[in-house]
């Protein structure tokens, strides 16, 4: 018998605190695999955010900073600017990144900070018990949209990748889903490619990872995956939206023009 799956080396052998079936665990493993595969364990610094994944630093064998709610991209900017040869990534939920952290992610992306952002979109605030997130679907019930999210009252689900895709800073932008083996496989590739982009010094990379939060969604994990496929996929289309190659082909000259 040949062992064909294994715990990634950088993923510590400790139980994770996530709820049963929560896909944060899968996302952690994929990040760990990318770090293993690229051989960057000895020079990678993680930035944990405020959300269910706040304790990510307990699970990866890396130096970590724990950032204030929404500010992980600013923290990562601070680290990367002073240690440009390190690989720096953030891991943020949708409340963290797309609500309170909107300014920080937009500007980090716009500056083309050479960092990687793993953005877990589970359509809800998990840690605080299931309030509406900016990514909550229309009609979806949460503890703060007890009658279902109504666009007139609470606006529309924000499509982060599409929003950032209007900026010139990002080099790699993709959306993947942790729904079943095939999707998880694609997610693994995207996450790896995001880190690769940074390793090659090509600029800002972000992977939006559609995830489940079975507990606050009030569903069994299996049902939650089905719900993700049925409701989230139509709202949040998957794919690579920006690649370093495409960006570099059309890139405006960096200096030039302007009042001199």
């Amino acid at each position, binding site marked *: 018998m040949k062992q064909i799956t294994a715990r990634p080396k950088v993923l510590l052998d400790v139980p994770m*605190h996530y*709820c*049963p079936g929560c896909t944060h665990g899968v996302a952690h493993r994929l990040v760990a695999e990318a770090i293993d595969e690229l051989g960057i364990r000895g020079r990678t610094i993680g930035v944990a955010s405020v959300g269910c994944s706040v304790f990510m630093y307990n699970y990866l064998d890396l130096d970590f900073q724990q950032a204030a709610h929404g500010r992980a991209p600013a923290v990562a900017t601070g680290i990367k600017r002073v240690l440009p040869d390190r690989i720096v990534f953030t891991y943020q939920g949708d409340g963290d990144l797309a609500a309170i952290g909107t300014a920080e992610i937009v500007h980090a992306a716009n500056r083309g900070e050479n960092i990687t952002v793993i953005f877990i979109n589970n359509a809800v605030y*998990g*840690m605080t018990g299931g309030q509406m997130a900016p990514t909550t679907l229309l009609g979806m019930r949460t503890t703060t949209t007890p009658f279902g999210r109504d666009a007139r009252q609470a606006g529309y689900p924000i499509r982060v990748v599409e929003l950032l895709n209007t900026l010139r800073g990002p080099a790699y932008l993709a959306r993947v889903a942790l729904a079943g083996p095939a999707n998880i496989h694609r997610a693994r590739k995207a996450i790896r490619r995001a880190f690769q982009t940074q390793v090659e010094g090509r600029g800002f990379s972000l992977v939006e990872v559609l995830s489940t939060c079975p507990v606050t969604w009030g569903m069994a994990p299996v049902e939650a995956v089905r719900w993700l496929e049925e409701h989230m996929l139509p709202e949040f289309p998957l794919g690579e939206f920006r690649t370093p190659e495409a960006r570099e082909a059309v890139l405006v000259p960096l200096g030039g023009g302007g009042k001199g």
Partner: protein
Amino acid sequence: MATTELVIAGFGGQGILFLGEVLAHAAVLEGKNVTWMPAYGPEQRGGTATCTVVIADEPIGSPVVSDPPAVIVMNRPSMEKFEPRVRSRGLLIVNSSIVDRPVRRGDVRVLMVDAVREATVLGDARAANMVLLGAFLAAEPVVSLRAVEQALREMLPPERVALVTLNLSAIARGGEIAREQMLLQRV
């Protein structure tokens, strides 16, 4: 007893807060002062959850109890944490379906209740918390079963009224078990 203090501890999802709330609600119905205080870890599910209920005739000072006279432990980590804290001569009720070790202390009254099995027998494993409540009330009859019944009726939404009956049988079964054990132990 002028003041009753009970700590219930276990995994999130075991109905710990609900157990405490039924008790607290019943006490309010009987005109007592009550505090109900939850505490939980970062996990929404599967983490630890603790609930402290204080019932008294006088205004209640601290709702936090460091050395509780009564504890219900519903999982192993809670057993580790609370067994040492139960007040001497206090009451320790153990959900023995999940907690797989015996009580070590000799100076406390112990009730071992196979609550999950009993509840499963009654039709729903999730009623294990009510079995334990029944056991507690048999040992410490701080509120009447009538008040408990009314509390359940007020707390559960009309469409789930069937649960009241289930819960009451669970409470009754828990009481039976407790009385049996107490008889044996002469507590």
